[in-house]
C-alpha cells in the first residue's frame, strides 16, 4: 500500500536517525513523508527528502490553513537561507516533532515564545502582545478589541507574567507562566 511504498523511499538509516532526533514515532514520520511529498509537483516526489516546498504550498495543509499563526510557524521552522520561509522535509519534521504529544513542555514553550515574538527581538513587548491578541480574535475590524480593552488586557498579562517588571516578557518568564497554564500542553498540539 501507500505506507509500504513510502517506507522504501526513506533510507532505513535516515529513518532511524529521524526517530532519534525527533519526538515522532516511525509511523508518524512515514505519514509526514507521505503528506510532504503530496505538496511537491510529481517530478520532485522521488527526492522529497532534499526538496524545498514554498510557503504557499505548506499553507494548504489542513492543519495549518485555519491557523492564525501559520506565517509565524513557517518563519520560525524554516532554515531557508533566502529568507523566503520555504520548508524542507527536515524542517517539516522539526515542526511536527515540537507539536507532537511526546514533546517536552520546555521545547514547546521555547517554540511558542519564538512564534509569538512577532518582531524577532527575543522578548515579548507590548506590540507583540497586541499582535498576538489580534491573531486570536480574528482578522477584520469588528473582531478586534477596543484600544481601552487591549490596554487593560495587556496590563493584566504583564502583571501576571512580567516578574522583573521591565515591561517585556523574556523567555524565562514566558516558560514560567506557561508551565503553570493547564491548557497549554493540550492546545499546543498538531497531529497529522
Amino acid at each position, binding site marked *: 500500500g501507500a505506507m509500504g511504498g513510502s517506507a522504501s523511499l526513506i533510507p532505513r538509516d535516515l529513518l532511524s536517525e529521524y526517530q532519534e532526533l525527533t519526538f515522532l514515532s516511525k509511523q508518524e514520520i512515514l505519514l509526514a513523508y507521505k503528506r510532504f511529498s503530496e505538496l511537491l509537483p510529481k517530478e520532485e516526489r522521488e527526492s522529497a527528502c532534499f526538496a524545498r516546498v514554498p510557503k504557499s504550498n505548506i499553507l494548504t495543509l489542513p492543519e495549518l490553513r485555519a491557523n492564525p499563526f501559520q506565517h509565524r510557524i513557517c518563519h520560525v521552522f524554516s532554515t531557508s537561507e533566502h529568507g523566503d520561509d520555504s520548508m524542507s522535509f527536515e524542517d517539516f519534521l522539526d515542526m511536527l516533532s515540537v507539536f507532537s504529544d511526546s514533546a517536552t513542555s520546555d521545547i514547546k514553550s521555547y517554540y511558542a515564545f519564538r512564534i509569538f515574538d512577532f518582531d524577532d527581538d527575543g522578548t515579548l513587548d507590548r506590540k507583540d502582545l497586541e499582535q498576538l491578541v489580534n491573531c486570536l480574535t480574528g482578522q477584520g475590524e469588528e473582531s478586534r478589541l477596543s484600544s481601552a480593552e487591549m490596554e487593560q488586557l495587556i496590563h493584566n498579562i504583564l502583571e501576571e507574567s512580567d516578574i522583573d517588571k521591565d515591561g517585556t516578557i523574556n523567555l524565562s518568564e514566558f516558560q514560567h507562566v506557561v508551565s503553570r*497554564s493547564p491548557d497549554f500542553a493540550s492546545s499546543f498540539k498538531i497531529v497529522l
Partner: protein
Amino acid sequence: FLQELPSCQSARRRRGGTQERRPALLGTAGSRGAAARALQQERAEPAACPAREQPLSMAEKRILRDSQQADTEHLSRWKKWRRTSSKSWKKALSEVKGLSSYLMLWQHDIHSIEGKFGTGIQSYFSFLRFLVLLNFIIFILMFSFVTLPFIISKYGIFNSTIAYVSPKNIEDNCTIYEPSGNKGLVYFYTYLKDLFSGTGFLEVTSLFYGYYTIDAVWISIVRYNLPLAYLLATFAYLALSFLWIIKRSVKGFMQNLVHDADPFQSYCNKVFAGWDFCITDPNAAWLKHRSLQYELQTDLQEEKLKQKRAERTMKEKLRIYSLRIFINIIVLAILSGCFYSIFTVTVFSQNSNDTGNANSLVNLVVQYLPSMVITLANFIGPLIFSFLIRFEDYTPAFEIRLTLMRCVFVRLANIGVLLFSLWSQISNCGTDKCKPCGYNYKLYPCWESDVGQEMYKLMIFDFLVILAVPLFVDFPRKLLVTHCSCKLIQWFGQQEFGISDNVLEIIYGQTICWIGTFFSPLLPAIATIKYFIIFYVKKIILIHTCKPAARPIRASGSNFFFLVVLLIGLILAFVPLGVSIARIPSSKACGPFRNFNTSWEVVPDTILEFPTVVQQILFGMASEAFAVPFFMIICIIMFYFIALARAHKRVVEQLREQLVLESRDKMFLIRKITEAQR
C-alpha cells in the same frame, strides 16, 4: 549591552548554546545559524540533554549528537556500555508505544472530532473511551474471580466440585427462597418483561447475586474460597478505579501552590494557551475566534464589575446576602422535594411488587417508576438551578461552578436516596417481621438480588433515555431549524453540545455501575456495551445536529474537572457499599454469604484460620491502641508539610520583589554607562 550581561551568558550556556538570538541588525543569517555558532563555541561543555530535546534545527541536532558521541569516546567502557544499552532500551520502548497506538480504540474518530470541534469536546470523548476501558477491566476482574470458578465447578471441568456447607444456627424460615423463574407455560412477552425488570428467568442467572449460592469450590485439590473471593474482588475493583482515576488526574493537573490566582481564569492561560492548534476546519476556526473574543471581553468587563462590587455599600451587601440565603433555602426545598418523591415512589413500587401480576405492562411501568422519577429530577433540577443562579449575582465563573456542583449533588444524592429507601424497606422491622433473620425475610428473601435488580433497571432506563433523546428531541429540532423559518424556532436555534450535561450523565451511569457490581457481578459488561454504543450515538448527534458552542465553558472543558467529579461519584459509591457489606445482615437464603452474619464477616473468619502470630498482628492493627497514635502521626506530618509550603511561599514572594529591584538597578546602571560613554 543586555546580551553581554553575565546572566544572559549563563542562561545561554545552560541551554547548550541555543539562547538569545542576536537582533537581525547584526546581519546573522537566521537565528538558528547564530545558535549553531554559539554551540560550536561551547563545545567544550558536555551537553547533558539528548539532542532531540534541544530547540535546534535538524542539521544542528546532528552536529550536537555527533559531538556528544565524540565525547563518549573518552569515557570508560562501562559508561559507554551503559549509554548504548539505555539508548536501545529507549528505542524498544518507543517501538512498543508505536504499536500500542494501533490498539487505541477510536483513535481516528477522536482525532477528527478534535479537528472540527476543538479540544473541549474531544476531552469528553476521550473520557468516554476511558470509561469503556475501565468497565471492561472491572468486568474481567469480577468474571475471572467470581463467575468463572462457579461455571468451572458447575460443569465439572478440571475435576472440580462444589462444596455446600450446611447452614448452622439459622431458622428454616430464613432459607426459603423461590424465585418465580417461569415455571410452566408462560406467554412470550413475559420473557420481554423479565428482560427489562430483571425478574423471572433473569433472576436465576449469573447476572445477580442470588445465583452464587455456594460456599466453596474444589478445583482438583485446591479449595477456592468463593465468598472471600467475591468480597475481595469487590474491594479490588473499587481500589483499581480509585487509583486509576487519581493517576489520570495527576497527569493533567498543574498545582498552583504559590499564587492564589485561579489557573483557569488567568489571562495568560487564555492568551498563550488560547488557540487550539489542532483545529483544521475553517468554520470551527471562525467560531473559535468569536468565542475567544467574547471570552476576553467578558472577562475584562467582569473585572471592572468586580471593582464596583468591592465598593458596595453595607445596605446593598445586606440585600444581596439575604437574597442568596433565600435562594439557597429554595434550592434546599427543591432538593428535599425531589428526595421525598423518590422515597415515596420507591416504597410504593416495592410494595406493589407482590400485589398481583394482573396487568403486566402496568406492573412494568410501576417497577420503572423510581428510575423515571430520578431521571425527571435529574432533568428538571439543573434547569431550575441555572434559572435561579442569575438572581444570586455572583461572578460568571463562580456561577458556572456553583451550578455544576449543585447538579452533581442532585444526581448523586438521588441514587443515595433510592438506596436509602430500599434499605428502609428491607430493614423494616415494624411488627416483628425480621426477628429471626435480621431483615424482612418475607418480602425480601434474597435482598441483594433485589437491590441488584433496581440498579439493573436504573442502568437500562438510563440507556433508553440516552438513546431516545436524540431520536425524539435532537433530530426533530435540527429538521425544524433547517426547514422551518418561523422566528420562534430560529431563535431557539440549533443544539449546542453541552459538555457538562453530557459528562454528568455518564458519571451518573458509572456510579450506578460501581454500586451495582457488588449485587450484580455481570453489570460492568452491560455498562461497557452501553458506553460503547453511546460513543457512536453521541458522535452522530455531534456531527449532524450540533453546532460548536459559541461560548465554551472553560472550567468544565478540562479533563481534570471530569475526573474530579468521577472521583466524587466513586467516593459516594463507597458509602452504600460499605453499609451493605458491613451493617445489613446478608440474606440467609441465597448468595455466598449465607453462613455469615454480614458479608464482611467472611474476612474475620478467614483471619481466624491464620497462625496466631499473624492474627495478633492483624487484630492489633485494627484496635484503637494502634489507630489513635497512627492518626496523630499523620496529622503531625500534614502540619509539617503545610508549614513547609507556607515558608516556601514567603520565600518566593521575597525573591520576586528582589527580582524587580535588581531589574531596576540593571536599567539604572546601563543608563549611567551609556551616559558616561557619550
